């Protein structure tokens, strides 16, 4: 059996004068891959490209061995693809069930009994089985995100592209989401983008860091975290020698720097530390973890 795979070779995408992506080379296999990067880094553009919603301006894309530039093959990809966009507007008057049912129709589930059973299955996966008949416009933001996730999960697709699936979703639901994705990732290629490093740390085996349209890092999460080993320390004051430092919940300061130091109180490095070291974004005060040493 051929393993599912996605490959990108020297892929670029421009919008008028803006270059959203450049020189992207990737090989994706079954498992969960996280896409990290600040706003404007090109995450959504890359995801749209993978989801065949956008063609590349240059380079070559192959999803499951098929070329999205060829219409017949593009349809073939779409038959095996689930995509959760960053924002979905929902038609007025639609209930969660009706909307997912509608997308299921577009995904060629023509038999009503099988289709309804599948709609219920995915609504159940995202924890909305009791709210299928609620109007989407009457739902909270997190519930709407879950509806848009549910339609992506239809058919347990071999390729699942999720743009910020955890945004606005409460912690309980995030745990369920992690379980669902982990299960699917045994045989499917799952790519998700997020701002939260802890989601990547908890869910992804692999991480791709994007910055201004280019890949800054592509590899196992543990390796990236390892890059910060010995480079994270705690102090009572922000250390001027540090690259980044911030105040943690206990009042002490967490510092990260490019050089390994011996004379400091080291802390266990987290993925966020490594990410910041790489130059990505700035620490979120409320997510800063205090590691007791």
């Amino acid at each position, binding site marked *: 059996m051929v393993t599912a795979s996605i490959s990108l070779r020297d892929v670029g995408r421009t919008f008028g004068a803006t270059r959203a992506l450049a020189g992207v080379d990737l090989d994706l296999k079954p498992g969960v891959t996280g896409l990290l990067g600040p706003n404007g880094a090109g995450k959504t553009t890359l995801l749209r490209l993978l989801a065949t919603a956008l063609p590349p301006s240059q380079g070559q894309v192959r999803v499951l061995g098929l070329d999205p530039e060829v219409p017949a093959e593009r349809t073939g990809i779409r038959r095996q693809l689930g995509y959760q966009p960053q924002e979905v507007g929902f038609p007025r008057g639609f209930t969660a069930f009706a909307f997912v049912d509608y997308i299921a129709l577009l995904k060629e589930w023509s038999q009503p009994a099988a289709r309804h059973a599948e709609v219920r299955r995915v609504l159940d996966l995202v924890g909305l089985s009791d*709210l299928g*008949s609620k109007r989407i416009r009457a739902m909270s933001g997190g519930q709407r995100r879950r509806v848009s996730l549910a339609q992506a999960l239809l058919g347990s697709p071999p390729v699942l592209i999720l743009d910020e699936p955890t945004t606005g979703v409460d912690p309980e639901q995030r745990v369920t989401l992690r379980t669902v994705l982990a299960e699917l990732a045994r045989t499917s290629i799952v790519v998700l983008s997020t701002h939260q490093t802890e989601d990547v740390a908890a869910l992804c085996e692999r991480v791709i860091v994007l910055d201004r349209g280019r890949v800054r890092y592509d590899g196992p999460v543990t390796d990236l975290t390892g890059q910060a080993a010995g480079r994270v320390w705690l102090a009572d004051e922000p250390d001027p020698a540090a690259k980044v430092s911030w105040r943690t919940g206990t009042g002490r300061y967490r510092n990260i720097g490019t050089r390994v130091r011996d004379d400091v109180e080291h802390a266990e490095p987290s993925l966020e530390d490594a990410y910041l070291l790489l130059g990505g974004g700035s620490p979120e005060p409320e997510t800063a973890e205090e590691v007791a040493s």
Partner: protein
Amino acid sequence: MDSRPGDEMLLLAVAERDMGAFRTLYERHAGWLAIRLARRCNDRDLVADAIQDTFVAVWQKPRGFRGDGDIAAWLWGIAIRRLVSRIRTRSSVAAVFEHAGVAPAAEDQVLLSVEYGDVGQALARLSPEMRAVIQAVVLDGLSAKEAAHLLHVPVSSVKTRLYRAKAHLRAALAEGPS
């Protein structure tokens, strides 16, 4: 303190389109409603359809319950009328007042008079047709027209039997215990 949600809470949740609450309501009430309906109609399919119609009606208008009286009484009112509707649309049906023909045995007669006194005895002495009408109109609260549909008799028969039944009862009660 009962930790299970009360029926009124469930209805509020159903108004918010909560399928779980709706299911709980079904599990709580479909059983006794079906049994009570089956005592008026021996066609199981009709009873099943009536139960379905009842709960669909509850879903569509959960705020129809005004909080006056028991929810159970409100549900029964919906259920019996749905049964009548279903019976009307099935012309070839033999919907029967199940135990109209059961006349109590001698021992039970004694039991009746002990437990239910004069009224119970008087009721027992009525003909099955008259008992059926009393149950439909007096106990179930149906109109003469609805009772006519339920029992498959003309409205005039319903009114006549009701009149006679009441006359019998009055006479029997006036007589006193035998």
